[in-house]
């Protein structure tokens, strides 16, 4: 894409955000169409469950709509992705609380493996499934660090863990993935 097209796209997104923040639903629908893929991919990988990811994606856009007036510029994609991470991890915590009320003492384990994301090839499908089967904490840190490009300091701050914990979980996740894919 040329620089001119990129600028035009940024301008278009900025204008859509302004219009949506004023309550223009058509503009917000356009923002949804443009960004749903990145939000859904992130939710699906963090949650490890495609059906749940669809529900979470809907929640992300509803939350974004409610908070659009608080958007202070910068990268809309990044803002949206942080909402997605927050909502997905909060859902995970409430899922754990619900389960703890039912089954005391059960250790953390991955939720059911998902149906495949759109999978054009077997290798990618294997990798997506292997990520989905990781223990949740390791999966979250792998996705944030490796796929989303967050630093360990960012992850530690966001998740409320020590940086060393983030690094150790990433190391564990990578080992588990290598074993699963060998």
């Amino acid at each position, binding site marked *: *894409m040329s620089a001119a097209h990129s600028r035009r796209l940024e301008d*278009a997104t900025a204008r859509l955000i302004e*219009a949506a923040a004023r309550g223009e639903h058509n503009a917000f629908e*356009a923002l949804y169409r443009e960004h*749903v893929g990145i939000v859904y991919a992130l939710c699906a990988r963090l949650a490890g469950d*495609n059906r749940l990811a*669809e529900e979470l994606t809907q929640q992300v856009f509803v939350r974004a709509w409610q908070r659009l007036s608080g958007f202070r510029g910068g990268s809309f994609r990044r803002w949206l992705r942080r909402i997605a991470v927050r909502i997905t991890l909060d859902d995970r915590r409430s899922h754990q609380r619900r389960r703890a009320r039912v089954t005391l003492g059960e250790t953390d384990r991955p939720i059911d493996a998902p149906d495949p994301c759109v999978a054009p090839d077997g290798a990618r499908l294997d990798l997506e499934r292997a990520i989905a089967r990781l223990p949740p904490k390791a999966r979250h840190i792998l996705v944030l660090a490796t796929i989303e490009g967050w630093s360990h300091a960012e992850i530690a701050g966001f998740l409320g863990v020590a940086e060393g914990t983030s690094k150790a979980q990433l190391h564990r996740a990578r080992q588990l993935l*290598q074993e699963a*894919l060998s």
Partner: protein
Amino acid sequence: MTPDDLDTRLAELPRSVAPSRDLWPDIAAAVEPPTTRWWRWAPPVGGLLAAAAVLWGFLSAPPAPLSPPDWAVQMRLANEALEATLMARDDLDSAARAEIERNLGVIDQAIAECEAALAEHPDHPDVAKALSLAWSSRIDVLAGVIGTHP
């Protein structure tokens, strides 16, 4: 599998994945009061036909300088932004672009006629409704293409 192989495969994962269904209707229901979506009840083609029928009686007079209402300005803004978003895509071939532009051209003609009629009859509710339907049709076309080319 070596660590480098794993890094390579992780780096190749797509950042964007389309969900298996359109999630917008449920989102729209959550964010949009039903009363504001009256214009979506009519399908786009029916909307254009209605616009054409309403316009029939208003096109004899020459258009006066246009001063669109706020909602029309907002719909134009949304359309411009959607179109810019779509045209910035590099995954549309020239035939697809030509088809889109041809469809938009038909709607643009209806919009121009509606705006001319609205300039002559700024308080006529049917003219305003026809213009809104035409703009909505344009949004549907653009959003539809964006939605099918994620």
